[in-house]
């Protein structure tokens, strides 16, 4: 609906829309501002002057407490390892399975496709108990593998990639196969490049979900130095329940980098989300 408006005066309606959106935007940002400002306050100040937003006495004590009295960098590294591994694995397994299911015929394909698709309908609450027990059988409790291995496949990713692969004309892959290229080669040099928008969207979704996941680490991990960030924040919060300033510093350290990443990659984020919604 974008109209060229350079020569047009903005109507009153435009300014009303802008005012409403700005109010909602303020509501969205306010908790972030409160968190960030509180992270520079002492707990005493937070409790005694609840109505004052800006710190009266700026302090870095909270940040110092987080960074020196907790393995914060270990937690950050754990999260990075888990989220990156899951993203790479999901992109690989989903594109490959999607390609095979879209371009090859084999026995039981339809049944297998629906079986995998049906798993999307099932809430994690049903599968988490058996997955917990399977991970136990594999002796993986309290390791990052307990999160990476079950996270390596995604029914949603499989479905998304198959949809995109179906849209690639058969003539492209068939021509290459006739020219003597192996299926793996077709996958790597023909299918993968054409799947780029799909991969970008899938990667963003998968990474965000893995980075923010809380329930899975909660049931799989108990040792402090194995925790990922969301779980560790709750752990830290419980351990410093009377030190709100420190807890807000920890929360800021987790949330602010994500905001910066979002601002840098905003175009990719928006495009990726839009793709999945219209598919």
């Amino acid at each position, binding site marked *: 609906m974008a109209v060229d408006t350079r020569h047009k005066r903005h109507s009153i309606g435009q300014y009303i829309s802008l005012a409403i959106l700005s109010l909602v935007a303020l509501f969205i940002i306010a908790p972030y501002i409160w968190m960030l400002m509180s992270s520079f306050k002492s707990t005493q100040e937070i*409790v005694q002057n609840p*109505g004052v937003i800006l710190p009266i006495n700026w302090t870095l004590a909270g940040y110092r407490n987080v960074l020196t009295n907790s393995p914060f960098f270990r937690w950050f590294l754990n999260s990075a390892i888990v989220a990156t591994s899951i993203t790479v694995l999901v992109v690989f397994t989903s594109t490959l399975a999607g390609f095979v299911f879209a371009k090859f015929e084999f026995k039981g394909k339809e049944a297998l496709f629906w079986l995998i698709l049906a798993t999307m309908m099932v*809430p994690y609450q*049903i599968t*988490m108990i*058996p997955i917990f027990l399977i991970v136990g059988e594999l002796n993986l409790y309290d390791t990052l593998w307990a999160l990476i291995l079950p996270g390596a496949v995604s029914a949603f990713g499989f479905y998304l990639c198959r949809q995109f692969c179906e849209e690639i004309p058969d003539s492209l892959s068939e021509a290459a196969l006739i020219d003597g290229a192996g299926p793996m080669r077709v996958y790597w040099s023909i299918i993968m490049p054409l799947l780029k928008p799909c991969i970008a969207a899938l990667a963003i979704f998968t990474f965000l979900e893995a980075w923010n996941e809380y329930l899975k680490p909660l*049931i799989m991990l108990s040792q402090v130095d194995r925790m990922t960030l969301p779980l560790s924040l709750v752990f830290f919060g419980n351990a410093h329940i009377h030190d709100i300033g420190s807890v807000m510093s920890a929360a800021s350290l987790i949330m602010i980098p994500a*905001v910066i990443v979002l601002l840098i990659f905003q175009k990719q984020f928006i495009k990726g989300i839009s793709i999945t919604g219209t598919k």
Partner: protein
Amino acid sequence: MFFVLLPILLLYFTFLVLPIGAGFVMSFFDYNPLRTNNDFVGLANFARLTNDPVFFKALRNTLYFVFATVPLNIIITLIIAQLISSLDWSKLRASFRVLFFMPCIAPLVASSMVWKQLYNVRYGIINSMLEGLFNIQPINWLGTQSLVIPSVILFTLWADMGYNVIIFSAGMDGIPSDFYEAANIDGAGPISRFFNITLPLLGRTFSFVIAMTFISHFQMFAQFQVLATKGGPNNAGTVLTYLIYKTAFQNKNMGYASAIAITLFLLIMIFTIVQQRVNRVDWGY
């Protein structure tokens, strides 16, 4: 080629297909991982559900939460998306989309912890604002039975609007402008344009968003664990997901927890089928 697919299918089987089967089977057992003997009990777990008051409370709270939050979310995000899409300034359109998406990139559990402080009775900014502006006495948001779920609802709206705003505005941008030009010539106002063009033409997107939002809200967990500490006062903040977690991993009663999980699944399934019937879209443009 198919050799590469084999380990992938093995992963799909081990971590997607097998656990579903196992989840159903476990609901017929009195399963405790700390015991060596776990008896087959038939439908006893489900029979137990029917006279478990906490289960019914959790069921009611879940339905209350989902059926209040999702419609509010859809209505608000539709309005916001429409307002954004109709802005003349393209830079502002992009900035608002990113801004409303901000809470979605934070871990739900981290934002819940921040909101827990905002809701605090003594020093929470919500209470001090209400006191300063309207002279309202401090309210115990998370400690009052009737206020726990509404507080979680407000938080969840804040945390989860971003996705839908972006998907709806992408859908709106995809509607050919001819429709609007024709409507303008016919003299249709903005509200009539919204109901007669935007909403019907969003069709597929609309149906997709509703289904995804319902399914995800049925499964929300983190904010209930953080905001409604230990299920809230008198279990007023206990939802099915929290009850399943507590039963399986704190009380180690995994058979019974599986039975509760299956009722959650049935709830989602029935709901999805009904929703697909109601929102059937069999045309495009």
